[in-house]
């Protein structure tokens, strides 16, 4: 360090060969240096920074140090807090026009106030609340999220803003219309996978996940389509369970999407018409917090590992696979039993003909019985009215 000092001072050494104006400039610089040191010495408690923030292109001043690739600081926990901000990444990020000190508001001078965080996680937890300065809506939504609840309960692993959106590298996720960019849809499951890697592995193999990750299919749902974006709900609650068929229905009743893949849009109606679906619908509307043992879409099709129904191994079109599903709730079910569920078909002469013809029979039988009855009753009423009038005349 002392070496450096002398090295620096060397530049100030006067030389006879130097021209006079240069010498004067150097002398003035030297005086200024000494004076500034003096000021610091006189009042070390209220040390003014050497250069006020206004005098430098703000972020560049910070990046001078923080652009260093190995810039880091050990923390009491034994971890190392990386202080590196990649200039290029930051320039490409949505925050490129935001000044460092907008978020790091406690840093107005150099040397910076020391860190109070004991660990890397502590530091993130101290910092993430500044997001609400600009992103109040999103921040408020997170307050209702399951992550926030878990965090409030003391689990500091729970995701906070910066876990999903690295503020120094976050690129735009939506286009000017607010629609998700294709690359963003790809990034989402990977973000969630940072903490939910086992679930991600299931999702990546599912019909939806594979279509997204392999084919970059933009129709399939990513995590947020079911779980929400910032107000991510606890998916283990009864109300979430009961509401889940409507999540699936959001896409699966949309003919525009389903036509492309030749998938029926009757899946919700046929489910709701069935015993299970009726019960779940009633629970959902009347007692959303009361548990029911009736299945919803995910019970049979899988939660994250949803497979094609014609999957050669896991497909529910295979009676054995469907029976296995039935048996999870009806352990004594035998091979005929799965047909008690009409597999989302609307009864027709081809599919479930007995049901179709029974329904058809009653379509004719009910009016066939009630019609003649009604005709007779009406004739009886008329006869009585006529006789009453006659009787009145006689009287």
């Amino acid at each position, binding site marked *: 360090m002392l070496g450096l000092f002398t090295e620096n001072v060397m530049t100030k050494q006067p030389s006879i060969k130097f021209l006079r104006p240069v010498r004067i400039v150097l002398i003035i610089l030297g005086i200024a240096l000494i004076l*500034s040191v003096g000021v610091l010495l006189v009042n070390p408690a209220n040390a003014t920074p050497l250069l006020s923030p206004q005098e430098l292109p703000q972020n560049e001043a910070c990046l001078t140090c923080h652009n260093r690739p190995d810039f880091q600081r050990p923390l009491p926990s034994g971890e190392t807090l990386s202080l590196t901000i990649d200039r290029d990444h930051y320039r490409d990020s949505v925050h490129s026009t935001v000044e460092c000190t907008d978020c790091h508001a406690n840093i107005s001078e150099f040397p910076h106030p020391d860190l109070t965080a004991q660990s890397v996680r502590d530091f993130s937890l101290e910092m993430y609340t500044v997001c609400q300065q600009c992103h109040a809506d999103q921040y408020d939504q997170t307050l209702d999220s399951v992550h926030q609840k878990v965090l409030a309960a003391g689990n500091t692993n729970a995701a906070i803003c910066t876990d999903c959106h690295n503020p120094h590298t976050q690129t735009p996720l939506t286009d000017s219309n607010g629609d998700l960019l294709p690359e963003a849809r790809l990034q989402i499951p990977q973000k969630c996978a940072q903490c939910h890697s086992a679930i991600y592995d299931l999702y990546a193999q599912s019909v939806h996940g594979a279509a997204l990750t392999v084919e970059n299919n933009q129709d399939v749902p990513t995590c947020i389509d079911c779980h929400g974006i910032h107000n991510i709900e606890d998916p283990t609650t009864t109300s979430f369970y009961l509401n889940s068929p409507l999540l699936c229905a959001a896409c699966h009743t949309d003919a525009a999407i389903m036509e492309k893949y030749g998938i029926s849009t009757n899946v919700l109606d046929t489910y709701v018409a069935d*015993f299970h679906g*009726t019960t779940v619908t009633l629970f959902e509307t009347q007692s959303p917090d009361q548990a029911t043992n009736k299945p919803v879409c995910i019970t049979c099709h899988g939660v994250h590992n949803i497979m094609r129904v014609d999957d050669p191994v896991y497909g529910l079109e295979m009676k054995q696979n469907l029976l296995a599903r039935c048996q999870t709730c*009806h352990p004594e079910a035998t091979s005929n039993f799965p047909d*008690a569920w009409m597999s989302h078909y609307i009864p027709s002469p081809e599919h479930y003909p007995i049901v179709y013809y*029974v*329904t058809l029979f009653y379509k004719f039988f009910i009016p066939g019985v*009630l019609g003649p009855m009604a005709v007779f009753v009406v004739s009886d009423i008329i006869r009585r009215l006529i006789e009453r009038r006659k009787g009145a005349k006689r009287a």
Partner: protein
Amino acid sequence: MSKAITKPKSVPSTQKSGTAKKTGVEQTKNRYYQRFHWAQRIAHALLLTSFTTLAITGLPQKYSLSAWGQFLINAFGGIEATRVIHHVAAVVLMLLSTYHVLDVGYKIFVRRVRLTMLPGIRDIKDAFQAFGYNLGFAKKHPQMGRYTFEEKLEYWALVWGTVIMGITGFLMWNPIASTRLLPGEIIPAAKAAHGGEALLAVAAIILWHMYSVHIKRFNKTMFTGNMSEDEMLHEHPLELADIKAGIAERPVDPKTLRKRQAIYWPIAGIISLAMLFGIYGFVGAEKTAISTPPLEEDSVPVYAPQTPTPLPTPTQAQGSGAFLFMWNDPISRIGDIDSSTLVRLQYTVQYTVKLFDWYSQEALCLKKYHPV
């Protein structure tokens, strides 16, 4: 019509009931005939309550998405409670049906009564005649016996309905047991039939039964058990004639009665036991459809963080400057700073060098990105 009432006045009846005695004033004017035994009236009351309960708990299940359906289901305490009430009422109706089978069996085999409820060609003729009379084509209203064609239609519709509802109800209540033998499709078919039949039954009760005994004329016979001679003459003239002729009843001598009873009761006992066992099976044979194991969740842990790429271990600074600027450098630890002059100076120098360093980098950047 008014003529018919005044005609028979004081013909004593063997079936004169106690009610007639009580209403002493009317006794001279109108004679009362017992039409329904108290057991039949109780059976009717049970049928009335169980049927109504089944209807008001069943139809909301058929139309569960309608506002009124949901209102009723909510009023009964939710769908599961509604189902329980429906099942209880169904058991009452099944027990009642068992009783009715035994009762009818006793009447047929032991007392050997006239089979007045049996429908025949005559009833069809009567129906057409009544309809013709209403329209003015027939001059006379048909004269009918103990049970009119309307009543027979009502009764046999009820028998048909109860059998259909019982069978389809069993299939739905016990789908696993049912599909051991029958195709699975029979369960949704049973549901369709149960719903269709329910609609038919309720509509028929409102249209046919309500009209016949409440709107046309409020007929209290099923509650009092008695019918006045006026009413008998008007509605069941042939039955009245039979009563008066003394052929309505077929008395059995006590000896034959005991003999028949001795045969009937054991058989009836076996049948009733079998039916009660059937009802028990109906209710309790199958548990898995109503109590199920907890649903399986994802078999993987929810929180499974990816192993993060380890950060590089702190090394010597590799920046363009030849100085060290590390947070673990004691003089840079602002919290630990001591205010000695030397340290202050060192820091100042470091910062100055840093600035030069930055300007030189920036110059390079400019060159790189904005070549002249």
